[in-house]
């Protein structure tokens, strides 16, 4: 298959960066869910999901974003999305996710946005 799925979590200061690569569908979404779950359980609620290398997303992948955003915001954090390719962006737009999620062009922008809303204790 053209591009399987890969996921990598790193940190930038108090931010967690989850980088997605390849396709995020019903087969690979559980890995993404685990990755976000791990951050949330570790009390890391300021999360950037970098989609620069994400070539495909289906509702199973979008469902992961959807199911965590409330909890993370309740804890004073956020899930910011960056690097959407036009193909993936189209799906966010169709579902109205652009109104719910903070979507930035590049990772820099997402980091910047978090710095404008400093961490408040949960």
């Amino acid at each position, binding site marked *: 298959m053209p591009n399987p799925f890969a996921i990598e979590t790193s940190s930038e200061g108090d931010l967690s960066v989850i980088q997605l690569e390849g396709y995020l*569908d019903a087969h690979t979404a559980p890995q993404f869910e685990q990755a976000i779950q791990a951050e949330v359980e570790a009390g890391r609620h300021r999360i950037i999901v970098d989609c620069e290398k994400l070539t495909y997303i289906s*509702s199973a992948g*979008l*469902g992961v974003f959807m199911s965590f955003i*409330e*909890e993370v915001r309740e804890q004073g954090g956020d899930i910011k999305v960056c690097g959407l390719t036009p193909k993936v962006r189209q799906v966010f737009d169709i579902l109205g996710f652009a109104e719910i999620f903070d979507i930035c062009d590049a990772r820099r922008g997402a980091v910047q946005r978090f710095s404008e809303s400093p961490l408040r204790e949960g």
Partner: protein
Amino acid sequence: MGTLERKFTLHVPSSTENLALIREFVTTIGKQAGLDDPEIGKLELAVDEACANVIEHAYGHDTSQEVIVRATFDADEVRIDVEDTGRGFDPKKVPSSEVEKLVAERKSGGLGMRLMRTLMDEVHYEIEPGKKNELHMVKRIRKKAD
């Protein structure tokens, strides 16, 4: 080419592992039908959603079952039929929740059928539980600008 109809069929075991192959299948067909890239992307996603639903809901992840995708196209449209012999359901009884509501309820699902209806020009189900459930979808071919 002209109005000659082209037919393609794919049978795969009911496993999410095979969604990537199903997408390749549909993408190839979309290209041959002359759809542009955004339209191919929509077709690909709609069929992925349809098959993911069969794998998850109709067969409950029983990988000994089979998902069948039939595709035909002519000069006017691409028709996709997704067939299963699983549980079946009543599509009219599926509530169509707003995304805001799903977010508030921390749901991870409930987006698939909405996507399919948005992405395709026609979507309808023919359900005969225990016998055969078929989902028919149509994407019309808008002639490319070039």
